[in-house]
């Protein structure tokens, strides 16, 4: 795969520099750190996100209005060092407390847990929420063990809105946890992504075969099949999700169909068509459904479907608008 970079060592730094120079009014660089924050500061709980780069817009593009306050970026697929996260923590408004949100991967968890301790030592109150939405990585009974993927988009959005409503840190944490517990994702990978530094494929993916539940670093999934039609793929994805979430007619949901970058909107809309049919057939109430590309492992083919089960409280925050150049969602309702 031909890649457009200058030098592998500078990829993430130069990506951030490019983003900040093109959108200078909204964001600024965190000093001495591969990290950014909103310029617009207000006296409320801040959300700091972080993780390895490579799944853009996740991390960098999740800082914005109604979203996260600041972010630390690690190298591609590598958690950022604790120091970087701590620098972001000190740079954002932290007097009302800081909520850290990241996906449940060991590197991220270890660094964020350490930062939480270091922030406490510096007198900053903070909490961690580790998103565990990938249903293919552990059983429902072991939800805390599941890894985090695209569902973090919806969790950050809900938590960001809760901060904007002026809630206390404890309340924001409660709502973020509620969002997390009700968010589930299942995915299909149709072609291998590649490492942006080398352009080399991350794993072998034979032509005409697909894998459900594969991790974005190429971790083995749970179901390997021949490539079927779009409708068959949508049916398989929804079957696993509905089964895991045990949704009924009384449930109200938000659905995100997330393309991995290599799969086109033409294809994603065909998948979306079938997804909507399945939801209607099961008579589940759809509060919102949308197609976007918010969590894209480097050039990977495939998509994920995330479902968040909503109650009236979650709906209130879900409906608030969110804006960053790469994550744009208008307000729902009035």
């Amino acid at each position, binding site marked *: 795969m031909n890649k457009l970079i200058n030098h592998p060592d500078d990829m993430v730094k130069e990506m951030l520099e490019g983003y900040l120079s093109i959108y200078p009014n909204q964001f600024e660089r965190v000093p001495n750190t591969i990290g950014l924050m909103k310029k617009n500061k207000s006296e409320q709980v801040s959300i700091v996100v972080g993780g*390895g780069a490579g799944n853009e817009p996740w991390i960098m593009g999740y800082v914005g209005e109604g979203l996260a306050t600041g972010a630390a970026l*690690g*190298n591609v*697929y*590598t*958690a*950022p*060092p*604790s*120091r*970087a996260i701590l620098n972001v923590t000190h740079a954002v408004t932290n007097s009302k407390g800081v909520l850290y949100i990241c996906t449940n991967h*060991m*590197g991220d968890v*270890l*660094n964020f*847990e*350490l930062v939480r301790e270091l922030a406490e030592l510096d007198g900053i109150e903070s909490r961690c929420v580790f998103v565990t939405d990938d249903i293919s*990585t552990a059983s429902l009974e072991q939800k805390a063990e599941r890894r985090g993927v695209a569902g973090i988009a919806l969790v950050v959005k809900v938590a960001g809105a809760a901060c904007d409503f002026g809630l206390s840190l404890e309340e924001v944490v409660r709502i973020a946890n509620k969002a997390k517990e009700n968010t589930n994702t299942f995915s299909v990978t149709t072609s291998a992504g590649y490492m942006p530094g080398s352009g080399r494929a991350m794993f072998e993916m034979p032509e005409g075969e697909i894998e459900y539940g594969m*991790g974005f*670093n190429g*971790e*083995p999934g749970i179901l390997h099949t021949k490539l079927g039609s779009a409708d068959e793929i949508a049916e398989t994805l929804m079957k696993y999700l509905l089964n895991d979430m045990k949704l009924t007619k009384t449930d109200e949901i938000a659905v995100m169909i997330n393309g991995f970058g290599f799969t086109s909107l033409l294809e994603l809309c065909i998948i979306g068509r079938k997804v909507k049919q399945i939801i209607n057939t099961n008579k589940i109430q759809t509060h919102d459904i949308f197609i976007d590309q918010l969590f894209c492992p480097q050039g990977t083919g495939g998509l994920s479907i995330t479902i968040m089960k909503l109650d009236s409280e979650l709906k209130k925050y879900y409906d608030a608008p969110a804006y960053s150049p790469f994550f744009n969602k208008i307000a729902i309702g009035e």
Partner: protein
Amino acid sequence: MKNSMNAEQLKNMFLSVAQKIVDSEDFLTEIDIKIGDGDHGIGMSVGFRNVLKELPKCQFTGAEDVFKMVGTILLDTMGGASGVLFGTMFISGIIKRPVSEEMKLSDFAEVFRKSLNALQQRGKAHIGDKTMIDAFEPAVIGLEESVCNGLSLVDGLNVAAIKAKEGMEYTKQVVAKFGRAKSYGEKAIGLQDAGATSVWIIFQEIADWSTGNLS
């Protein structure tokens, strides 16, 4: 033969360890790519290249300060799980220790025992989980037994290296409980853990440097 190390010697020894890790980047990548993210070699190399850059500029009086500086550099520059875990390996053992001018074999045993305990608390891994603990714990036990057996500093550090190597070899026999390797299940049998390999490289170079410079 000298039976202890001062701060200057520790500094030179860790610079030698750092060079060894940097030289092992491709070897570690090769191991990790079969079973992990494939980024262990790069991460370790980034951290220890920064040790090579920063450590020579530092002046130390206490032996503990050398451990602290190496650990802090790793923690601040590596990222990933490895940054926290290898940072812990160097920092946590010296916390709350009075500063000492010289480190004897018993001091090495004490420091690394404390950091092993901290590491297990943080990473929640035990022997047999196919992690760096599989090499680190036997090395620490090797140091402690050498103290009991009255071995010299150089001999004790060599015992630790042998035990670390045995532990690294042992990781080939077990399935992984953590990280990406976990999803490989039984397919991980026969493959060694990259973190355990790095621990062995560190202890081997500690032993080799001591043999060459203290004997």
